[in-house]
């Protein structure tokens, strides 16, 4: 069967109304914090005032006497459960046990009849600490004789590959990843030009409007948790481990999620909330504030020492990098971030000799984990900065230089991984055209183009069920989380397209691990590609059943039937799916089930599932007097194979680029000693509408070259990755100043400009 092309689709490839749009704008959409269970109590957390301290004693007796207080949990009264969790390394106790490892770590939870009573009782929990020397930065953590964040090693979590913590007992190294091909030393020795530098990517917080919330109900039939979690099935696995329950006794339900950007991935407050319910014997709600969310997770800030070499013809010959990730107090997802950072530092280029050493390092700071684009954001900044630095050395236009080195479609950029499945040269050409790079620049303005390729999609295990009803309606059961990215709408479109029904007749039932089939996760830009494909295949499987039923009704062989948009034709007879079900079962309200699962076989055997492309361009204006950078122009490319919903792809690209703008110009979590200085939204500066460029082009590339439905592949993270490098490169073009540390704050830019002026003066004298 030949594949439909843009223009031939009925529902897909159109920007239809969002499935959740009306509910969200009218405030009727249900988020986890809207859920009220009968008899629900509330938990509040007491947090550590120290970055590193031994807990000498905890006395909760007075707190227990406070009005409304039901239970107090702390590290000394968790007997009966396994309080450690972690999908990579099981190093994270749900409340500090024995010692605290970062300022803000939960030490005790008070459960009370209402939130305020729980909160007011917190100050009556008495905790005695003995402060320990801590390690707040990577260098301190790696120093000889450094205090250890963790003294013991831990078991691995549900993810394989991280269960050998190796030297952990003797050092603060959480995870090492090494990557090598070719002969780097020889290549550098023979290179025509080499650039080398150290780049610093800041500690940032993935701000989402909804902070973490979960509601747990532990009772005789098992554990039910409603949560803002991005990966309900991984949360289920972790919870099953903590409480020693079978998977079918743990039910994780995720209603709408108010944004994640990586911060909601993996297990966060669910084990603690569940432990509160287990202890209090009541359903318990735990809702964090944004300030508390900022003490819960962040990205891994990174220091990257990197050098890149070219030959005389301007071909990349080698890249060597040492990446140090500041992983904070617990591993969370940083082992995977380390692996991705190592993979992604190569970029979409053909580089014959590569050596990368990446190390995730424990420190006494807020634990780091996933952050939109993870790994790629940290390393695309240095990688793409160096592309411009090299281009200058070669007196070559940076775009030309990239073009010369971009891998073509089908070419391998990374031995052992899937060859590149995108046409980056085409993407870059579109950006260049939209950015009008041939037009002269105003004074103080700079332009830049940068790109990235991320091994995306994660482990391609997913499944779905589609119910086809005798009244013509269809339901999709999905374990993919609707985070605002629009996945429910996309899945609905695919089912409507395949079953030949109007969009309104399709309902999407979101994640409930007791009801919806297994989906590994909602991350790595995978949902449209993998869940979308599973929905398509489940519809097709239902259609096969319906065709067989129709054949029986029409007393002919199934092969004789002609498949139509929403039914079959045979000679002069036509049966809709509705007719088929009604006639076959003799009932008007019955239904059948179409199923599909995907796993790592066939065209999904080779990882990644797809390469997620980032290709962006910016024009900036620099105020030399204040050092302030303003974005004048933004161009993104959504190279998504096929845009199931074009407007949402554009929205994702704009959102991702705007996050890149935030980290590029403003966002950085600042520590003074052990204290986080700007852990709230008044002091932590996220981008605003007024920061958006006056001129924005959000371009789409639909080459149908993905392994998702109709050739689709994922998006949503790619346009973040190259933006910080675009900004730094454009700053260089505008002013001649090269900054290797983000964010490019006004003062940093001003200082660099002043230094440059001073140097110029000295030369003059």
């Amino acid at each position, binding site marked *: 069967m030949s594949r439909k092309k843009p223009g031939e689709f009925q529902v897909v490839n159109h920007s239809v109304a969002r499935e959740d749009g009306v509910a969200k704008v009218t405030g009727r959409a249900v988020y986890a914090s809207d859920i009220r269970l009968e008899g629900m109590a509330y938990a509040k957390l007491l*947090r550590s005032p120290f970055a590193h301290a031994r807990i000498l004693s905890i006395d909760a007796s007075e707190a227990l006497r406070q009005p409304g207080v039901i239970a107090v949990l702390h590290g000394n009264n968790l007997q009966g459960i396994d309080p450690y969790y972690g999908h990579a390394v099981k190093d994270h106790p749900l409340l500090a046990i024995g010692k605290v490892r970062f300022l803000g770590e939960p030490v005790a939870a008070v459960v009370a009849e209402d939130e*305020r009573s729980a*909160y007011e009782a917190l100050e009556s929990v008495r905790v005695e600490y003995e402060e320990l020397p801590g390690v707040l930065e990577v260098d301190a953590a790696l120093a000889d004789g450094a205090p250890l964040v963790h003294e013991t090693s831990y078991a691995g979590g549900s993810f394989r590959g991280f269960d050998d913590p190796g030297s952990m007992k003797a050092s603060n190294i959480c995870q090492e990843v090494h990557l090598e091909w070719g002969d780097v030393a020889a290549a550098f020795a023979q290179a025509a030009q080499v650039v080398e530098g150290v780049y610093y990517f800041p500690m940032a917080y993935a701000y989402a409007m909804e902070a973490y919330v979960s509601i747990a109900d532990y009772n005789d039939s098992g554990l039910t948790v409603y949560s803002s979690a991005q990966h309900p099935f991984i949360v289920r696995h972790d919870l099953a481990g903590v409480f020693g329950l079978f998977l079918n006794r743990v039910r994780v339900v995720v209603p709408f999620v108010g944004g994640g950007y990586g911060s909601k991935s993996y297990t966060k407050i669910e084990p603690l909330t569940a432990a509160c319910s287990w202890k209090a014997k009541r359903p318990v709600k735990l809702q964090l*504030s944004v300030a508390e969310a900022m003490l819960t997770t962040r990205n891994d800030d990174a220091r990257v020492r990197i050098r890149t070499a070219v030959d005389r013809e301007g071909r990349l010959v080698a890249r060597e990098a040492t990446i140090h990730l500041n992983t904070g107090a617990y591993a969370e997802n940083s082992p995977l971030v380390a692996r991705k950072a190592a993979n992604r530092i190569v970029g979409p280029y053909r580089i014959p000799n590569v050596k990368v050493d990446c190390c995730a390092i424990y420190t006494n700071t807020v634990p780091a984990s996933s952050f939109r684009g993870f790994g790629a954001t940290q390393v695309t900044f240095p990688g793409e900065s160096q592309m411009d630095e090299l281009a200058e050395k070669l007196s070559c236009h940076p775009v030309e230089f990239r073009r010369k080195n971009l891998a073509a479609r089908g070419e391998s950029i990374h031995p052992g991984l899937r060859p590149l499945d995108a046409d980056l040269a085409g993407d870059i050409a579109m950006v260049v055209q939209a950015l009008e790079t041939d037009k002269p620049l105003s004074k103080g303005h700079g332009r830049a183009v940068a790109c990235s390729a991320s091994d995306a999609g994660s482990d391609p295990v997913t499944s779905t069920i589609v119910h086809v009803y005798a009244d013509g309606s269809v339901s999709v059961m999905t374990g993919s989380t609707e985070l605002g990215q629009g996945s429910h709408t996309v899945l609905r479109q695919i089912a409507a397209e395949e079953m030949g029904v109007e969009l309104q007749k399709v309902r999407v039932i979101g994640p409930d691990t007791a009801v919806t089939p297994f989906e590994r996760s909602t991350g790595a830009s995978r949902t449209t590609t993998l869940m979308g494909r599973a929905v398509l295949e489940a519809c097709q499987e239902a259609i096969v059943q319906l065709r067989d039923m129709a054949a029986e009704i029409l007393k002919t062989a199934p092969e004789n039937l002609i498949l139509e948009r929403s039914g079959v034709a045979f000679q002069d007879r036509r049966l809709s799916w509705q007719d088929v079900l009604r006639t076959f079962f003799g009932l008007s309200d019955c239904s059948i089930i179409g199923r599909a699962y995907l796993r790592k076989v066939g065209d999904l055997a080779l990882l990644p599932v797809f390469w997620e492309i980032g290709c962006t361009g910016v024009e900036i204006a620099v105020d030399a*007097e204040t050092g*302030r950078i303003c974005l004048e122009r933004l161009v993104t490319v959504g190279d998504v194979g096929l845009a199931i919903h074009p407007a949402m792809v554009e929205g994702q690209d704009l959102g991702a680029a705007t996050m890149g703008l935030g980290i590029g110009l403003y966002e950085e979590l600042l520590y003074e000693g052990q204290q986080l200085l700007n852990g709230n939204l*008044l*002091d932590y*500066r996220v981008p605003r509408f007024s920061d958006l460029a006056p001129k924005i082009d959000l371009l789409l590339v639909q080459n149908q070259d993905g392994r998702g439905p109709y050739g689709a592949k994922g998006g949503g993270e790619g346009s973040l990755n190259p933006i910080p490098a675009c900004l730094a490169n454009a700053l260089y073009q505008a002013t001649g100043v090269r900054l290797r540390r983000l964010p490019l*704050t006004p003062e940093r830019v001003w200082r660099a400009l002043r230094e440059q002026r001073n140097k110029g003066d000295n030369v003059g004298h």
Partner: protein
Amino acid sequence: MMLLRRFEIHQPTSVAEAVQMLAHFGEDASFYAGGTELLLAMKHDVLRYKHLIDVKVVSGLDSIELRDGILRIGATATHRSVERSPLIRSHLPVFVDMEQRVANVRVRNTGTLGGNLCFADPHSDPATLLLALGASVVAEGPRGRREIPMEDFITDAYETSLGTDEVLTGIQVPAATPQQRAAYVKFQVHERPMLGLALVLETSDNGESFRDARVAVGCVSPRALRSAEAESLLTGSRSAVEGNLLRAADALADSAELMDDPEGSAEYKRNLIQTFLRRAFQKAVGQP
């Protein structure tokens, strides 16, 4: 964290009753206007009160009037109502220009001018401009009503000379004369400005020369302040003043005793003062 402890709200019907309530509850109580600062501080647990006395409900305390060449703005007038007041727009346009850029529209809709001044955050835009405009505030307490010049009102970061038993009832600003050339400029990247700078010049010859100058700088020191040295450098012929701008900026920066802090280094702040004094001058007198 980010949760309010229990408290009671009291709604006085007059200024006198508000003052009585405060006397009655003492240290357990605070006035409460828009709550944009107060409730945030209470949510962060840096302030704790059992009683809040809601001055917003006192009728008439949000009026805006012009009498005897003085604009009289009630303490509970919101930023938004000031920004949209035709009276202020025609009699003190620089104040409207400043108010339009305070915070965001939600904060301006709720936050009051009185609350802004009484909270005495060093990053206040109005406090800086009012200082340069020669404004004063009006307080009422058990001992009656008194006027306090802006110079003496804010005494330090988050400190005012308001008595613990007094309420702020209004702000008085001289309306602009045709001889006035005024501008307020600021540099703002974060939620609060990093620098606010107000320049008020008097000219009797349509900008050829300036017979009087008042300049105030905010955000870079515990409270907004003026510099006599800077002001004298900004007086004289236009070309002389233009030539003095850098020195005047340095004088302002010196009097501010700039410090390195997470917002910026002292030298960067000095640079901002230099840059923005020039921009303020250009804005006030119009570019040639």
